[in-house]
């Protein structure tokens, strides 16, 4: 009998265990297949230069998506990230434009982001307004303020060099041969990873997202933690906004449009659910990478932008489809 049990159980067992560690195998397969295909078609694809480019272009969405993973894990979301980036960029840009020191400008930018985050957090946690509605409202408001403040114009940030003491460093600098925004993204992802998996706050976030009522019963301070979630999100968005301003050598009030949806898609593509309680920042990063490789490869191939869209959509469906098929076969 015991032997039989073994026989019955073992094949299933291993298949499932591998399934757990390879939850996002579909994305991984997509990533590898895409890289192989692009490498075969375009000789430029596998160059260091190109990889550095590609990573640079996805660094900002990477930062924002990392933050979004926390928000979604907590059972919410943040639609105001793009506007936040814009307002921060504009404020930092205008301050630098008028000759203020870099440190002050950056601090002011981060503070703005923090404030937006806290407002979101209070509205969601205390007033209990749905996160989508709250952040949609702040998205509109903050974008409006960015335009009001700048009167629709950009603040050029001139003469900054991509070396450290200058503002250009953050968006255009190179360190150890790697673009600075890429390094910053890796840092942010690493920090978010540690926060989500190693800290008590991270534990609280998953509990709140999974079942806020149970979390409350267990003495978790749901309100305070939720405010923290949006505060972090706000600061990360501001951070991304500052890097973007540095990259563009301008604070642009229309910057960051569409980041919110992109970031949410990456998180969900990474396997999280909008009902909360789930989500891993490493999987989000994988999704960001897939989308980044796609965008980069398509341009290298010179694919028309309309065809790009169609292909991108199909590949999205395929990668998630693979996972679903596997999981169902396993079940």
């Amino acid at each position: 009998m015991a032997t039989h049990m073994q026989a019955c159980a073992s094949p299933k067992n291993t298949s499932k265990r591998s399934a757990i560690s390879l939850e996002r195998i579909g994305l991984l397969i997509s990533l590898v297949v895409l890289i192989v295909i692009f490498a075969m078609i375009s000789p430029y694809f596998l160059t260091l230069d190109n990889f550095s480019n590609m990573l640079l272009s996805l660094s900002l969405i990477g930062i924002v998506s990392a933050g979004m993973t926390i928000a979604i894990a907590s059972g919410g979301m943040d639609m105001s990230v793009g506007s936040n980036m814009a307002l921060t960029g504009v404020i930092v840009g205008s301050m630098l434009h008028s000759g203020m020191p870099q440190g002050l400008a950056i601090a002011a930018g981060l503070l703005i982001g923090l404030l937006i985050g806290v407002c979101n957090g209070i509205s969601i946690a205390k007033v209990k307004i749905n996160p989508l509605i709250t952040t949609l409202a702040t998205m509109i408001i903050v974008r409006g303020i960015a335009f009001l403040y700048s009167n629709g114009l950009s603040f050029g940030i001139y003469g900054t060099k991509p070396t450290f003491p200058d503002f250009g460093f953050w968006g255009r600098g190179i360190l150890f041969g790697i673009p600075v925004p890429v390094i910053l993204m890796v840092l942010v992802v690493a920090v978010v990873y540690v926060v989500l998996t190693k800290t008590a706050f991270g534990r609280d976030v998953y509990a709140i997202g999974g079942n806020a009522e149970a979390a409350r019963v267990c003495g978790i301070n749901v309100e305070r933690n939720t405010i923290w979630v949006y505060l972090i999100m706000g600061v990360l968005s501001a951070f991304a906004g500052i890097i973007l301003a540095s990259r563009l050598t301008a604070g642009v009030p229309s910057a960051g449009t569409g980041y919110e949806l992109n970031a949410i898609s990456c998180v969900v593509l990474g396997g999280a659910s909008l009902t909360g309680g789930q989500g891993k920042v490493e999987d989000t990063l994988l999704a960001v990478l897939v989308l980044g490789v796609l965008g980069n490869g398509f341009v290298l191939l010179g694919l028309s932008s309309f065809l790009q869209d169609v292909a991108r959509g199909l590949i999205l469906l395929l990668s998630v489809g693979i996972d679903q098929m596997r999981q169902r076969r396993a079940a």
Partner: protein
Amino acid sequence: MACGPILRLEGVCKSFPGVQALNHVSFDVLPGEIHVLMGENGAGKSTLIKIISGVYQADQGSLFVDERPVRISSPKIARELGISTVYQELTLTPALSVAENIFMGRLPRRRNSGFVDWAALYRQTRTLLDTLAIDLDPRELVGNLSVGYRQQIEIARALSLQAKLIILDEPTAVLTDEESSKLFRNMQLLKERKVGMIYISHRMAEVLNLADRITVMRDGGKVATIAGSEANYDELVRLMVGRNIDKNRLAKHPVRRDQPFLEVDNLSQSGVVQSCSFKIYPGEILGVYGLVGSGRTELARLLFGLEKSTSGSVKLNGTPLAIRCPRDAIRAGFGFLPEERRRHGLVLKLDVSRNINLANHEYLQSGGFVRAGLEKSLAEQGVRELAIKTPNLRQLVENLSGGNQQKVILARWLTHHPQPQILILDEPTRGVDVGAKAEIHRLIKELARQGMTVLMISSDMPEVLTVSDRIMVMREGGIVGEMLQEEATEEKIIFLAAHHQVC
């Protein structure tokens, strides 16, 4: 045909990752028979009935309905085959009305159009509820009802299907004795109509009363099938657990009743809890009994800061307490096991370890970081002490059997640091098997002996009678009586709980 089994299973196997839930189980149900399934938590009972009702597919083995081989690939097909089921985990939709939940998937329609015939729906529901003696408004939203009522709705749904096989997975776990006996009466009627029934319960008395046959399972396999008339308590326990359990009266320890530990004075919440005043002494186990809706759960939630009281005060060790939220309560030394484990107790998508440590985040951290080793060892301790059946600590709680889920919440407070000074347990052994139940009772007693104060709400009369040092009875939100264990009898308690039913 009348004597052939309605349902027959042969060599059914089912495995989940890391768990062989069913292992070559064969089983049958005859018309007009109540076939009881017994077994420890996680023995595979629910999995078996889920295979019969089409929720899961067997990995191996065959099913026969009326001796014809069938493939039950969905719950819909099971229904069409005349099988109807009350699941262990409630399957109601809170945002819909009582009537809609009962007739979910088969709402009466107007002249075969797609339109719902609301009048007929409410009429049929009314009739059904009346015949089952369930006092509920068909239009009430299920989300507003307590578990007891919800369970009755589930039962009403299953019984209304005119099925030839009805499966009941721990239907009485959330019912009080009176509600249960209503169900038993209905089961007798079904029996006369030659309906077959599979009945799962951990309540030995019920089982011995009802069963025509009893099948005992252990670790996914069938141990034995015996006739109900030949079964007795010790025999069943031995089959289930593989050993005898010590059902000697638990040793009593003296409670000093001079300085109350917790003093509740005129605690009220509009309409639900009415001027409750009582005291609990250190190391005392105060049992609270009452019928469905008597306000016990509400009282517990008030004490734990989950609801706001409209008036009244609470003193702990003589000092007034201001508890605004569960956090305050936990800081003050409270621990709380909620009545509805899936709604208030567990984060289903998180694993066993996380769930056990859910209330422990503050203790576990050092400088904000979780001490992973400590987290793991606490979880291991919880799993060990309560014998939680799980392949590993990373198993999602969602995948545990009902009884094991309950144990996870208990483990949470046993491993909590600092150790709670007072535990509020709302139906602590709901869904827990006999062996584990005795174990938990012993544990509660042991904790009390070490000085922990326990407020135990229970609808399980023997539990109330054997475990409590003192018993309090509630009715209509108020406390209607109180007695020491020595003075308590079942009759006295029932009398207090149910008397004066007229307003």
